[in-house]
C-alpha cells in the first residue's frame, strides 16, 4: 500500500492537540488494514520524521438509522504516533 493510502488524514481535536503539545504524539486516521510497522514507515516517509512508537485504536462502528434504513457509521482506525523529541509535524502546529 502507498504511504498516502495508509495515512488518511490528521485528527485535529482538543484531545489530539493536547497530545501534540504535551507528549509529542500525533494522531491520524489510518487504513484499517495497516499494521503498526506499515504506519510507522508511512509516517516517516510522508513527514520526514523518526517514529518511536505507534498505538492503534480501533473504533467500534455506531449504529445509525436514516428513516427506515439501518446502517453503520464508518469503522475507522486511529493511530497515535509518538515522534522522537526533536521532530514535529507542521500541519498540527503553527
Amino acid at each position, binding site marked *: 500500500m502507498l504511504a498516502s493510502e495508509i495515512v488518511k488524514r490528521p485528527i*485535529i*481535536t482538543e484531545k*489530539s492537540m493536547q497530545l501534540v503539545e504535551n507528549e509529542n504524539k500525533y494522531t491520524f486516521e489510518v487504513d484499517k488494514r495497516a499494521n503498526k510497522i506499515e504506519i510507522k514507515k508511512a509516517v516517516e516517509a510522508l513527514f520526514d520524521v523518526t517514529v518511536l512508537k505507534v498505538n492503534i485504536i480501533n473504533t467500534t462502528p455506531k449504529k445509525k438509522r436514516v428513516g427506515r434504513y439501518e446502517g453503520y457509521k464508518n469503522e475507522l482506525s486511529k493511530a497515535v504516533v509518538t515522534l522522537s523529541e526533536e521532530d514535529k509535524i507542521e500541519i498540527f502546529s*503553527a
Partner: protein
Amino acid sequence: MAKIETLDNNRVKIEIDVTAEQFEAGLDYAYDQIKDDVDIKGFRKGKVPRHVYEQHKGVQSLYEEALNYVLQETYSDVIEKESLEVVAQPKIDLDVSKLEKGKGFTYTATVAVKPDVELGEYKGFEYEHESIDVTDEEIDAKIDALLGQNAELVLKEDGALEENDTAVFDFEGFVDGEPFEGGKADNHEMVIGSNQFIPGFENQMVGMQPGEEREIKVQFPNEYQAEHLAGKDAVFKTKLHEIKVKQTPELTDEFVKELDKEGVGTIDELKADTKETLVQEKEETSKNKAIDFAVEEAAKNATIDIPEEMIEQEKNRQMDNVKRQAQQYGIDFDTYLQLTGTDKETFEKNAREQAEKSIRYNLTIEAIAEKEGIDADQAEIDAKFEELSKQYNMDVEQIKEQVNDAAVKQEVVFRKTIDFLVENLETE
C-alpha cells in the same frame, strides 16, 4: 520607532514602525476577543487554539481587530513620548495588502496638533460698559407683565367675539364634502389672533355670538405639514360655546401679598424688588457684553493657524449636539432644518464658522493665561467643585468621580483669564 515630519497648517506626519512582536501581540489580542465564539469540529467552544483557527479561517480575518489594537497602542505610545498635543483624530495610512504574519510593518499617521498662538494686543481696548440704570418705565413695564401673567380668563357676559378673546368652540372640517382626520374637536380653546389655525380661520370667527354656528371656508396653505391637505379648500363647521376674556388684576397690596414673595408685601416693596432684579439682569448682560467684546478683540489680534481637522472635528461635535437636541424633541434633523428655515449647506457653513470662532477664542484665552501666568490653586478648584455640586445637586465626591481635576482647573483658569481681560479694558 517613529519618524516625525512637520507639515503645514500645524499638522504632523508620524511614521511608525511596528515590530513583528507587536503585531503578533495584536493578533493574540484580536483572537482573544473572538475566541469564545469560534466553533470548530473537534473542539469545545472557546478551546480552539489560535493556529487551528487560522488554518480554518485564515489569519486575515484577525487583521482588522489586531490593527485596531496595535495602531492604538503604538500611536498613543508615540504621542506620549513625543508629547504631541493632538487636537483631532489622526488619519492613518497603511497598506493592508503588505501585511504579513510574523513580520513588522510601517504606517503613517497624519495628525493635527495644537497650533501656536501668536498673541497680539489683548489689553487696554477702549470700551464703555453698558449702563445699568433702571428707569421707572422699565419697572412699570415689568410689573405690567407680571400682572398679565396673573391674568385670569373670565366669561364674557355679552358682546361678540373680538380679537384677543378666547373662543371655546367645536369644529369639524370637510374637504370635498368629506371629513378628514384631525379636523374635528370639541370645546377647543383658542385665542383669536394667535394664528394657531390656518390663515383666515380666526378672522372669519370674529363677531360670532355664543351659541352661534358658522361655516368657515379656508384654503390650506400650499406648504402644509399634512401633504394630502396642502393647497385644498376646506369648510369648517363651527359652533361657538363661550367667549372668555383676560382680566388682569389690579395692582394692590393684596395682589402683592398673593404673589407670596419673601419680604415683599406692599406695592412699594414690589417696585424695589423689581428694580433690584432688573439691576442684576442688566449687570449680567453688561458683563457678558464686556466679556464678548474683550475676548473677541483679543482673538482678532492673535495669529493662529488652526488646522482644518480641528475645525472639522469641532464642527461635527456641534452638529451632533444639535442633532441630539432635535432628537430629544422628537424631530429628525431634516425637520429641524425646515423648522429653523435653513438648509443643510447653510447650517454646515454656520456650524463651521461657529467652530472656528470658538476654537480661536479658546486658544487665545489659553495663550493669554499662559503668558500672564494665570493659574488656579487647589482652593479655587475645590470651590469650583463645590459650585458644580450645588448646580447638579450632587455630592462633591460624586462630581469628582465624573469630572477630572484637570478639566475643572482649566475651567477655573479660563474664567480667571476672562475676568483678567475684562479688568484690563480701558473704560472711561
